[in-house]
Structures are given as structure tokens and as C-alpha cells.
């Protein structure tokens, strides 16, 4: 019996480890060759897809792109999955349409599940670099994870392009390895406040968790609102909280004209349900400060009619002009998943494309050469072209996408059916 119990415990631990590793990348470990950085003279346009470009030969050793994103709670695995779809299709696009990355080598994606937890994210980034010798990482969704990962990036050298991490502190570090193609908090806050003002809302109720994103955006909203002459009441709750009724009652008692819902993970949904429960929403309009309601199947399954009327801050709308790469991605995504891609997927796709092209331009997997290529070239993105200027403060290596606010006006709408209600014109 003693043997049986020992065997059982061992078996259980083994199965746990096996099951938990199911989502990880399974490509074999290998050392990618490195060479001296290729000189990059001046800003050049990265190659656009050529009809005659051959597909990457499958027999060459691949180069690896690290997808560092949440695949499980307490992170936001839903968002991580959407970003990952984009990154994987980005690799497919490079291999099928652009003839591969460095020396025609095919691109493979290896996954690091950061669990939305800084220490896990830092460890996973290190593993991706040391185990796969990735040409760079992308996919970051949680600012707190990104902040931890760039500290390791500074040490190991592989560049990271932030796909949806928006804390301004990330690019404010000025680290050569930190790049971003997503909104920073101050711009997001300016857009949110400008929207509130345009709608005649004088009192803003802000609710977020105590993460870098929630706290950082809170400070930015307060600053932007003060300049615009609007009032703000911020409520920051513990990320582990399961019941937000007391916080919402507090906001309700203050009498806001609009609620900014900056929750992440399950609480972003809880806020809608519990605000509805106490009669705060939809009586008071609510703005989702990122585009998580675009995960429309999940959104409507969880909220049904209660979710109608929500405003959504995003960087994508179906009427936007897509590049050749963006159109390829849209069509392939529709074919593969039977639905239109969200902004998360578009940006994941674009970032993977940029990394692969930067390595191709550099002609090397050397990190300095890739960073140099990123800094010196224009890259075709899913919409428009991207550059990474050496700007001041948070504008270091920062490319800012369009800022839009849309609204679900009826139950069960898909993201493409949301109404565009506001466009923010940002000039740095």
C-alpha cells in the first residue's frame, strides 16, 4: 500500500506537469547561428510581398519568434489566444509569401505562457531566448509582465515588440530592446477624456485593478481630465477581488456621467454584470478602455442583453484600409477561424511580420543587428507602415495606431457590426 500511494502521488505530479506543458511551444531546441550585424545605412522600406517570392524552403533550419503572452489565468488567456493566432499567421505569411526570414529560413513560433504574472513572464522570456535563441519576442498583453520582461531583455539582448501592453513606463525606460506598436496610456487617456467631453459628460467614474495598466491609466486619465476641466473619481480594486459591488456602489453614490471600465481578465466582465445589478449600467454609459468586448462570442455569452450599449476603445474598424499583408491576414484568418480577426490578432500578426523582416534586413540573428534594422527601416504593417523613432520619454521606439471608439448597439453584434462613434486625431 505504501508503494501504491507513492506511485499515485508521483503519477499525479507527472500528469500535472504534462498537462500544464500542453500549451507550450514544442519545437526542438537548437542553436541558431549568429553572425556580425549587417550595416544599415538609412531608413528603407521593408520588402513588400512579391508574387514571385518563393516560399521558404522547409529543409532549412527555422528561426524562432517568441510569443510571450498569457495563456492561463490570472492573466487574460482570451486575449493571449487572439494575439497568438495573429503571430502564428504572421509566421505563415512570412514563410509562404515573403520567402522566409534570414537567408530564406522559415519562421517558427515558440510560446511562453506568462500567466499575466511578472515573474513568470521574465522567466519565460529568458527560457525562450536561452532555449530557442529567438530573434525577438512579441505578444505582450499585460504591462506588468512587459515591464519585468524588458529588464531581462536588457540583459540578454533580444528585442521585444509590445503588442498590447500600454504602460508608458515600458518605452520610457529607453532600453534599446523595447519596441511598441500599441497605444500608450497618456494617448489612451487623452482619447477617453476627449470622447467624454465630446459627449457632454462632466463626471468620469474610473474603475480598474491594481496592475500597472490600471494604476498607470488612472493617473493619465486624472491628468487629462484635469486639463480638460472634467471631474474624475478613481476606484482601484485588488486584482484578486471577486465581488466588486462595494466599489461600484461607491461610484454610483458619486453620480458619474460615464464609467471607464479598465478591468482586466474576469473582473472586466464582473464590472458590467454587477454595475447592471445595482442599476449603474446601462443607466450610466460605460466605456471599455480596451477592445476586449470584441471577443464577441464570449462577451455575449456572458452578458446577453445586459451588454448592449457599451462603448469600446479600439484601434481597428472594418472600414480601415488594409495593406496587402493586412488583407492576406484578414482572408486567411476568416478561412481558418470562420470569423473576422480582432485588433489583438491584427497587431500580433503585424508584430511577427516586423520581427521577421527586421532579421531578414539585418541578414543575421544577431540582436544588435536586428535592433538596428528595427530602428532604421519602415515596415509594412497590417494597416499603414510602422517606424520606431528614438523619441523622447514614452515615445521611444513607439508607433501609435489609430484611436477609435465604437459601440455595440444591439445584442449579439460582431465587432464588424459595432458602430464607429468617435475618432481621435493624435499628433505627438
Amino acid at each position, binding site marked *: *500500500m505504501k508503494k501504491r500511494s507513492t506511485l499515485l502521488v508521483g503519477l*499525479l505530479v507527472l500528469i500535472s506537469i504534462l498537462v500544464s506543458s500542453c500549451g507550450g511551444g514544442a519545437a526542438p531546441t537548437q542553436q541558431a547561428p549568429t553572425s556580425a550585424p549587417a550595416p544599415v545605412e538609412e531608413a528603407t522600406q521593408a520588402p513588400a510581398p512579391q508574387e514571385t517570392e518563393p516560399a521558404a524552403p522547409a529543409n532549412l533550419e527555422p528561426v524562432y519568434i517568441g510569443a510571450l503572452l498569457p495563456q492561463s489565468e490570472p492573466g487574460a488567456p*482570451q486575449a493571449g489566444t487572439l494575439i497568438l493566432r495573429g503571430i502564428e499567421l504572421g509566421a505563415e505569411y512570412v514563410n509562404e509569401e515573403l520567402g522566409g526570414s534570414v537567408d530564406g529560413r522559415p519562421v517558427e513560433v515558440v510560446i511562453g505562457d506568462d500567466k499575466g504574472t511578472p515573474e513568470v513572464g521574465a522567466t519565460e522570456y529568458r527560457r525562450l531566448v536561452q532555449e530557442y535563441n529567438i530573434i525577438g519576442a512579441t505578444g505582450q498583453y499585460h504591462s506588468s509582465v512587459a515591464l519585468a520582461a524588458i529588464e531581462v531583455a536588457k540583459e540578454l539582448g533580444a528585442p521585444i515588440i509590445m503588442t498590447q501592453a500600454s504602460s508608458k513606463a515600458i518605452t520610457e525606460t529607453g532600453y534599446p530592446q523595447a519596441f511598441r506598436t500599441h497605444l500608450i496610456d497618456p494617448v489612451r487617456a487623452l482619447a477617453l477624456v476627449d470622447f467624454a467631453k465630446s459627449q457632454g459628460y462632466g463626471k468620469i467614474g474610473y474603475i480598474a485593478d491594481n496592475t500597472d495598466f490600471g494604476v498607470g491609466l488612472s493617473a493619465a486619465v486624472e491628468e487629462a481630465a484635469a486639463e480638460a476641466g472634467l471631474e474624475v473619481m478613481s476606484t482601484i480594486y485588488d486584482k484578486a477581488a*471577486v465581488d466588486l459591488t462595494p466599489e461600484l456602489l461607491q461610484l454610483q453614490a458619486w453620480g458619474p456621467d460615464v464609467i471607464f471600465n479598465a478591468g482586466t481578465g474576469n473582473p472586466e466582465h464582473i464590472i458590467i454584470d454587477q454595475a447592471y*445589478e445595482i*442599476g449603474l449600467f446601462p443607466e450610466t454609459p460605460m466605456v471599455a478602455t480596451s477592445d476586449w468586448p470584441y471577443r464577441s462570442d*464570449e462577451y455575449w455569452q456572458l452578458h446577453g442583453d445586459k451588454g448592449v450599449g457599451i462603448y469600446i476603445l479600439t484601434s481597428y474598424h472594418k472600414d480601415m484600409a488594409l495593406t496587402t499583408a493586412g488583407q492576406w491576414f484578414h482572408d486567411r484568418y476568416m478561412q481558418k477561424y470562420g470569423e473576422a480577426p480582432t485588433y489583438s490578432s491584427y497587431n500580433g500578426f503585424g508584430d511577427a511580420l516586423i520581427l521577421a523582416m527586421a532579421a531578414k534586413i539585418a541578414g543575421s540573428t544577431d540582436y544588435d543587428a536586428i535592433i538596428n534594422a528595427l530602428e532604421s527601416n519602415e515596415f509594412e504593417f497590417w494597416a499603414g507602415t510602422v517606424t520606431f523613432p528614438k523619441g523622447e520619454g514614452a515615445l521611444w521606439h513607439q508607433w501609435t495606431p489609430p484611436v477609435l471608439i465604437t459601440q455595440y448597439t444591439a445584442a449579439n453584434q460582431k465587432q464588424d457590426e459595432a458602430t464607429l462613434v468617435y475618432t481621435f486625431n493624435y499628433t505627438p
Partner: protein
Amino acid sequence: MNVTPELFLNFLIAGIMIGALYALMAMGITFIYSIMKMINWAMGEFYMIGSYAQWFLVSFFFGSAFWFLGVLATAVILFLVGLVVQWLLIRPMFSTGMERKDEYGTVVTIALALFLRNLATVLSGPNTRSPDIDLGRIMIGGLPVSGNRFAAFLGALIIIGLFYYLLNYTWLGRAFRAGSQNRVGIQTVGINVLRIDQIAFAIGVTLAGLAGALLAPVFNVFPENGAVTTMKGFEIIIIGGMGSLPGAALGGLLLGIVESLGSVFIDTGLRNVYGFIFLIIVLLIKPTGLFGEKERLS
């Protein structure tokens, strides 16, 4: 912020509502501890299984109108799962001459928690889910409360009542109480203590699963949803006194109220800290917890 009496009452009601549900969770933990003298670190995962079972049963079998059948079926499922898990993983603690029971219990239940959580992630995918149950809104005092939450609150009270009846007015309950006092003693009167252990474990995890089923439409269903409730459950059993069921009930209610009022009068961001401060104060005043008893060592 200006806290009016009406607003204060609303916060109090919100605290009591969540407190009753905390209590249900904590009672499962403390019940298993009182009988088997072991901590089940996987209780949150049984809560998670309960919530998934309710979502699945309501979505694919019973429909929204018969959601309560989902709760009953979840209880049966969790009870059977508890019987099997206890027989497979916990029983060897007592049926063999194992010397380090505490260490074994800790390792095996933590491994079980990891296994169940990861299995749920793999099986259910990344999306958060919720059973399609909408019981409208009702007014309690000045506080509008969702029917789902009120049903969960009432369900928790009914289950706690039934559990109280089971323990105090049935033969099985007397056997449980006797077993919690003297495991050797009950064997001398012909009670199979291993069978009592197995049933106690199954009942304990069923309580957690029922909390998960009742709260599925309120707090949603995802693989990690039991983690917070487990942490609260352990706080509560320390506040109430290890192994004390009235302590778990009162501790749950008090924790809910302390968190609700603390987040209003002090700072919402420190919600989880208030419970620990309350715990420390209780232990300073009464080191065994509210209803805990001093252990007599020979």
C-alpha cells in the same frame, strides 16, 4: 466620500451576501479537517469543478428554467468525485502505516489542485463562461440585488441548514462528531472509520462544489476561479477556529462584512488586506480563533 445610513446599509447587505457564500466554502474545508485532521489544498478546484458542472448541465441538459436541477446534479457529481478521489489518493494516508501523514496530505492535494486546474484549461479553452441564468433583480433594503446572487445566498443558507441537521440529528452526523473527537474510540463501537473518512471528504468537496454551482452565474466560470475562494476559506477557518463549523459560518459572514465596509471607509485597493488584519486581531484576542478550543497534550 459621504456615507449615508442608506449607503452604509447597502454595503452591509453586500457584505452579508458574499459572507454567506464564503461561509459555505469554509465549512467544507473545516469539516474535512475536523474529521481527517488534514487540509485539502484542492478545495478551490472542487469549487471550480462545481461551477463548470453547473455551466455544462444548464447549457446542454436542463436549460435556464431548471437551473436548480443543475445544482442538485452537481451535488451528486461532486459527491461521487469526492468518494473516488478520497479512495484513490487520501485513503492510503490512513489505511497504511504512513508516518508523515501531514506531508503526504499536503503534497497530494496540491498536486491534485495543479492537475485539475491545468486539465480545466486544456479542456475548456481560454474563454470565460457563465451558465445562462437570469433571475432578474430584486430590492433588499435600498440595495438592488441580482436574482442570481440572491438565489445563491438563499441556496447557501439552505445548504448550511441541511448540513447542520445532518450533523446534529442523524446517526451519520453523530458518527462524524464522534470521529472528530476520537478516531480510535469510534472503531471500538463498530464504526468503520475509513468509510466515515471517505463520506466526510465527499461531503466536504460537495459543499465546495455547491458553492461553485451557485456562484457560477454571479462570478463566472474559468479554470482559476477557485483560487481566491480557497484563500478566503483558509482565512475564515482560522478566524472561526480550526475544525469549528459554527466558527466557519460566523467567520465567513464577518469576513464578508469587514471586506465590504473596509473597502468603503478605507481603500478599495486593500480589500484582501482587511481580512488578514481582522484575522490578526482575532488571533491576538483569542489565539484559537472565535470558536476554537485549546488542544490538550499529554
